């Protein structure tokens, strides 16, 4: 009787562990990439949605621009105010009579412009020197109409000024007496900063893309492995737990990083689709911005991968893990709100919180500001700490998870 000797002697030490890490990484990556249906859904939802939203915003803004260019004004009672109509026409505005049911149309957002209501005794009161009342009607629930309110009010103010000057001139007073000072508007925000307001939601979409990119793979390599019962045989291999955990993390982080890269790059062609010329000029997302985004996102992808794995390893089934991971998803998706809601703007401590720091830094990139080496190093360090803590927890739980 011959007795077999093991043909494979496990190599000890750093070299063997590294090779095992690569083996696990390669297998998990292959496994994740074979999960075509999930992968396609993640790619579609996370990579395509950002540019899609950008295009929608651009369509909205270009619609507003078109209406501003059209220079049209709706009056209810055009015939009551020939002088006002004359003034408006001299400002090259086309004056139209509002439809009969304009009030309803405004409420149901069918009318895109505010309506100016002229009283029947407009001309008579004007002639008597009594100030006739003119109403500008919009609806704050009707976003399209309310955005035009300011413009219409300014137009009517112009008529007021003209009339006042004419009356003063009749009395021999210089029009300059009416103006104690001259007011000019100057906007300090650079074009890039203005664009960042519009593009403020871009970091949010990119963040979500990274999160959902990591989610499925992280859950599949931990809770999924438990559910299939493949964790127990896996740990009956002489591979070290560290090699298994690092390998799994490497695969999950790679998928998350791939999604991060794709979603960042998707904004490059995305901006060619911008309809509005102003928006296209304002939202500048070039290779430099993409590189800045990736510098802050890639470490986060690693940290989120570790965090999700740590949450999921306690769950026996994929479904249970999904429920538990909701906490992480919610926390990460809420972070952009902190910067939006806080009155003081960006705080120093924001940079110490993963996800919050990434959003803050991505905003800076969009505003055209340079991000400092210290800030990058800080986010890298917090993400590294989070990664190591998460993986240490996974390693600790792994053996118990195999049979519980």
């Amino acid at each position, binding site marked *: 009787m011959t*007795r077999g000797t093991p043909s*494979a002697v496990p190599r000890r030490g750093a070299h063997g562990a590294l090779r095992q890490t690569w083996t696990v990484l390669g297998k998990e990556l292959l496994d994740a990439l074979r999960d075509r249906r999930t992968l396609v859904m993640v790619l579609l939802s996370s990579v395509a949605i950002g540019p899609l939203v950008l295009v929608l915003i651009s369509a909205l803004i270009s619609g507003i621009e078109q209406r501003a260019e059209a220079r049209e004004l709706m009056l209810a009672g055009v015939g009551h105010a020939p002088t006002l109509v004359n003034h408006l026409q001299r400002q090259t505005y086309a004056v139209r009579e509002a439809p009969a049911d304009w009030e309803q149309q405004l409420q149901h957002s069918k009318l895109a412009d505010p309506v100016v209501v002229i009283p029947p005794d407009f001309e008579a009161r004007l002639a008597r020197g009594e100030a006739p009342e003119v109403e500008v009607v919009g609806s704050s629930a009707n976003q399209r109409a309310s955005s035009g309110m300011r413009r219409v009010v300014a137009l009517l103010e112009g008529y007021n000024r003209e009339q006042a000057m004419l009356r003063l001139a009749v009395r021999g007073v210089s029009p300059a007496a009416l103006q104690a000072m001259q007011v000019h508007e100057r906007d300090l925000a650079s074009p890039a900063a203005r664009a960042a307001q519009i593009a403020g939601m871009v970091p949010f979409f990119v963040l979500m893309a990274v999160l959902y990119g990591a989610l499925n793979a992280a859950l599949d390599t931990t809770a999924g492995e438990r559910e299939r019962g493949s964790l127990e045989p896996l740990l009956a291999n002489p591979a070290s737990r560290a090699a298994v955990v690092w390998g799994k993390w490497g695969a999950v982080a790679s998928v998350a990083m791939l999604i991060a890269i794709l979603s960042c790059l998707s904004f490059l062609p995305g901006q060619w689709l911008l309809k509005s010329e102003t928006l296209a000029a304002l939202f500048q997302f070039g290779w430099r911005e993409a590189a800045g985004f990736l510098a802050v996102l890639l470490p986060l992808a690693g940290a989120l991968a570790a965090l999700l794995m740590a949450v999921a390893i306690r769950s026996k089934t994929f479904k249970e893990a999904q429920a538990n991971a909701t906490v992480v998803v919610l926390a990460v998706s809420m972070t952009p709100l902190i910067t939006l809601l806080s009155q003081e703007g960006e705080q120093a401590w924001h940079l110490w919180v993963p996800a919050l720091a990434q959003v803050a830094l991505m905003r800076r990139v969009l505003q055209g500001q340079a991000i400092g080496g210290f800030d990058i190093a800080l986010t890298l360090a917090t993400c590294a700490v989070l990664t190591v803590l998460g993986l240490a927890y996974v390693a600790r739980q792994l053996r118990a998870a195999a049979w519980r």
Partner: protein
Amino acid sequence: MIEVAALRKRFVQGRGRKARTVDAVAGVDWLARDGAITGLLGPNGAGKTTTLRIVAGLIEPDAGAARVDGIEVARDPRAALARTGVLSDARGLYPRLSARENIVYYGRLHGMSADAAAARAEALAAMLDMAPLLDRRTEGFSQGERMKTALARALVHDPPNLILDEPTNGLDVLATRALRDALRRLRDEQGKCIVFSTHIMQEVERLCDEVVVVAHGRTVACGSVQALNARAGQADFEESFVALAFGDRAGERGQGAAQHGGRP
């Protein structure tokens, strides 16, 4: 050779006030020789799976030791695992990988080169009569096909020892016969030390050189089927098993209570 001596493992279930301890294994002893098939026979919940998990290094025992070819598993689990093939209760294949990829993955984890692992997968497929399965994804495999793949995976590093937890669960007659045949050949041609757990009498009668009867976490009896029949004074092995495992149940319980009471 696998040796299990005075093994004890106690689990705590629940938390806080509801917590209660369960003695999953309370003194199990057995020895599995090379070139022999040893069966762990016992009712459900007797501690068979826990014992095998301790041998596979998944659980650390509270007391006692499991040794594989003289290596204590708790001290050097990786050296012990390098000499053991494990087929666990859950077959746990990766559904998106082909059978070949499943087998080669484990070979790589055992430190084999890609070529060596691939060659071994071919050889094992020929031995287990599963060559046509190799390049199919394991998703949708039948129980028998799953078992063959998992067995090939457990044998990829050609371990001298093989432990199987309830290997015939869910298998039909033909698959069970194929497994029995494979295990006999591994014993006779390669002199492997094979341990498997089961609660099915026929399996043990047909296959085992040595039977270890386990009940309530303890080794109740061991020996060949004939020896156990002789000891129980029964001609039928099932009768022998019932007599050995449950016959002196009242006595067992009394003993257990005395033991618990004696502990602080």
